[in-house]
């Protein structure tokens, strides 16, 4: 592989010495602070709901205890729908990640294909999610295919663009160093490009996970008879606003759990990266 095949800019990951900033506070201190803030926000919301529920009918604002009761019910009776949504989400995210890495990788290393792929990705990001959902209903008979298609066309561009940006940010110095050993193209990919883009993949996953949950639920609402989205639609049409709130509550918890899971994986995979806090 010749050095010219990889576009480079400045190094993305500064090292600790000589860096502006100071060592990050211990992780447990930061986690405790986050937990306290989140608890305060949740308590304020519960109090506001309780007050509002005293003044408006149940079908507009249910009492927090009713929502809790409904949540318990859903967890007991509707587990399958939660797992179905999670499975759809996992399959679509993993597929989008791998396809995005391949497309972003090609964009970053094959100059001739870059403009074409970039144009496709930019056009894709410009199409509203709702358009994809409606189109999917026309194009595909099977609900799983519809949801997989909708989530993939929405998530894939994020991965492709971020991986491409990651490759562009590969320091020229690193490329020259690896090339001085006369590697094969595969070795450049294995020892340099892939490890370098890992932080970009994590960043993308953390950024899209909340969005992906919302899109998955929305897609289920439009295109499926099972899953959290379809159950929310059913609750709404039968005037069970407490269940709508309960599903929403579960979705927020799900988002927290997934973010925490990705964060834990990131910590393990990027243990080499010094953490700093800017003054």
């Amino acid at each position, binding site marked *: 592989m010749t050095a010219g095949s990889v576009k480079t800019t400045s190094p993305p990951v500064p090292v600790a010495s000589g860096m502006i900033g100071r060592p990050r506070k211990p992780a447990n201190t930061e986690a405790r602070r986050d937990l306290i803030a989140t608890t305060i926000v949740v308590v304020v919301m519960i109090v506001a709901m309780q007050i509002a529920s005293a003044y408006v009918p149940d079908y507009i604002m249910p009492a927090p205890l009713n929502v809790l009761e409904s949540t318990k019910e859903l967890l007991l009776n509707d587990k399958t729908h939660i797992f179905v949504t999670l499975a759809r989400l996992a399959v679509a995210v993993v597929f989008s990640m791998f396809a995005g890495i391949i497309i972003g990788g090609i964009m970053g290393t094959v100059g001739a294909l870059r403009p074409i792929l970039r144009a496709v990705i930019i056009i894709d990001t410009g199409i509203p999610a709702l358009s994809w959902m409606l189109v999917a209903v026309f194009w595909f008979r099977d609900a799983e295919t519809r949801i997989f298609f909708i989530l993939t066309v929405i998530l894939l561009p994020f991965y492709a663009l971020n991986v491409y940006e990651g490759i562009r940010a590969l320091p020229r*110095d690193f490329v020259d160093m690896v090339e*001085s*050993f*006369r590697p094969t193209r595969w*070795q450049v990919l294995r*020892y340099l490009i892939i490890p370098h883009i890992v932080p970009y993949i994590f960043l993308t996953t953390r950024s899209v996970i909340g969005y992906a949950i919302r899109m998955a639920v929305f897609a289920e609402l439009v295109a499926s008879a099972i899953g959290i989205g379809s159950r929310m639609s059913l609750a709404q049409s039968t005037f069970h606003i407490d269940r709508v709130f309960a599903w929403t509550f579960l979705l927020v918890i799900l988002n927290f759990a997934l973010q925490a899971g990705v964060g834990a994986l990131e910590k393990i995979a990027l243990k*080499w990266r010094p953490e700093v806090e800017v003054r």
Partner: protein
Amino acid sequence: MTNTPHAMIELKNVRKTFGEFIAVEDLSFSVAEGEIVALLGRTGAGKSTVLNLVMGTLRVDSGSIRVADADPYHDFRALRGRIAVSFQTDRLLPWRTAVENAELGLLILGVKKAEARRRALDWLARVKLTGAEDKYVHELSGGMRQRVSLARALAVDPKIIFLDESFSQLDHVTAKTLRTDFLRIAKEYGKTCLFVTHRIADAIEIADRALILTKGARIALLETITEESRNDAGALTALHDRIAAAMGGADDDDEEDDREAATP
């Protein structure tokens, strides 16, 4: 029959231009096996272009270059494992530990993982980094990083080592220690070395010969540096002054180093 040493690096009438700019004009020199040659010159003299030509990352306009009996540009892959480079900055990959960085070249050359690890650990010990093997790059000092970089280059057991201003980013004490270590290793294992630098002190300390380049990579002076000249204060000062004059003066930043070098 004459007993001429085999030239490991040989340039004949090399010319390289970038548009209208003549970077290298009719340059010829050779480096014998086991010899350390310093390419000295001020910024813009063409040192880096010469190094890139010899490393095979640039193509000559005319003339010829042979490195370990191969054309470094056209036979790019033929020099796999026969050359190594120690750069001005350490260029260590931050996601790899010291030992993982040191073994990188070996892995690229297809050495089995266990053997690569053994050899990398061995070289880290030789550059005095025992105990720091599992540290990540941000946990190492500048001197330690440069040592890992040197270990990475030496671990592949190259016939030829290119040093590109390898010691110029370090403080004086660390640079001197590292130069001494490098010289010991290079001589012990008979490495051929082309050392690009703008610091006269570095060149005098480790090179067998110094090639002073001026604009267009024209050779202004060729000096042979012997142990005697290093150990004789008068001869050393005269040598230093000749080189500085040929370069058009030493860099102000390096005067302290140069004064130090002029003291045996």
